[in-house]
């Protein structure tokens, strides 16, 4: 196991090789690796910027090419530092390019229970995994433009439905401030930080504990949930369906067409 990080973490003990890179140089490291995979010349000064030596990087590339089946596990250290989505995109490209030599995949490390399910469901229904805009009546995908933190910090949305999350406790302050400014609706088994800044809170049954359904494991294996308790509250599924039904009784904005122009941003 090769561990790449900006500092020595507890995972170092479990790893065979630890590559300590300079903070904010993820994109540079991945790009150099891509060049080495294709046997392209690499500038020594660019290698120095990364905090690693050319020997270390070349050794890493040789190991990856020799592997029978390689996996990149990546987390928010990659996607939330300088470069953001471009870092993730670069890593996915590196994994794709390594398939010219061996089997290689990239898998995001998941913090929350069924975030993998969210990817799978959104891909199934819209063709895209997250950050999807329906403002033109068809799905458009653009992380950085339609991703939640960016939308909230820029103030691009004027209402929010939050379910299975507590952004009021975890997001950057400007994003939380915007959630508090706009009408926010929160569905959660508990009254959370987000509930307190919301105009509407609805208590729901806890997923997998008192709400049945399906959840996806990180490697995209769907698993049935087996609740042990009966909740006095409705499930998220039931509440969202009821909100959807109530919205369906109102005139369809797309048919009216008049709000189309507003969404053509």
């Amino acid at each position: 196991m090769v561990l790449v990080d900006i500092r020595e973490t507890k995972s170092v003990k479990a790893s065979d090789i630890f590559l300590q890179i300079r903070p904010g140089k993820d994109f540079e490291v991945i790009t150099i690796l891509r060049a080495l995979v294709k046997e392209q010349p690499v500038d020594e000064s660019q290698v120095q910027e990364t905090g690693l030596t050319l020997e270390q990087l070349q050794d890493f590339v040789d190991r990856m090419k020799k592997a029978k089946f390689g996996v990149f596990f990546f987390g928010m250290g990659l996607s939330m530092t300088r470069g953001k989505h471009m870092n993730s995109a670069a890593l996915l490209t590196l994994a794709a390019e390594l398939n010219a030599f061996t089997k290689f995949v990239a898998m995001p490390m998941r913090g929350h229970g069924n975030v993998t399910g969210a990817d799978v469901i959104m891909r199934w229904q819209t063709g895209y995994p997250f950050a999807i805009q329906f403002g033109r009546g068809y799905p458009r995908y653009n992380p950085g433009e339609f991703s939640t933190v960016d939308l909230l910090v820029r103030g691009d949305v004027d209402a929010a439905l939050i379910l299975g999350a507590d952004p009021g406790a975890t997001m950057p302050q400007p994003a939380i401030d915007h959630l508090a400014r706009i009408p926010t609706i929160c569905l959660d088994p508990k009254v959370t930080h987000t509930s307190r800044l919301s105009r509407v809170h609805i208590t729901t049954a806890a997923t997998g504990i008192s709400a049945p359904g399906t959840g996806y494991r990180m490697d995209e294996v769907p698993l049935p949930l087996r609740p042990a308790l009966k909740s006095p509250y409705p499930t998220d599924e039931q509440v969202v369906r009821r909100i959807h039904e109530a919205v369906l009784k109102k005139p369809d904005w797309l048919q009216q067409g008049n709000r189309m122009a507003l969404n053509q941003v």
Partner: protein
Amino acid sequence: MSLNIVNNATCTFCGCVCDDIELHADEERIIEAKKACVLGKAWFLNHTAERLYPEALIDGKEATVDEAVEFAAELLDAATTPLVYGMSNITCEAQREAVGLAERLGGVVDSHTSL
């Protein structure tokens, strides 16, 4: 008091989604979560079937689910670009409903993946 034992229960606390947990529960709470890790045990033992919270709140005041659903639909329908966000600690069935709602609203749908 009857003890309900669930074999091969699925833990949705983190992305590992272990599916070999043995849960011992009475009517109101899970008493034991065998084979679960520290995080999983806390997850299972922390959620109960008690009525600890009001069923709904509107502007901080207690309300019925009917009222809250109706008001939520009004707020979302009135918005130009509503955001549907989170989706991580809910079932796939609920996620499907949420994507359908976002499409109808002409809004944005996003999950923790964007973080």
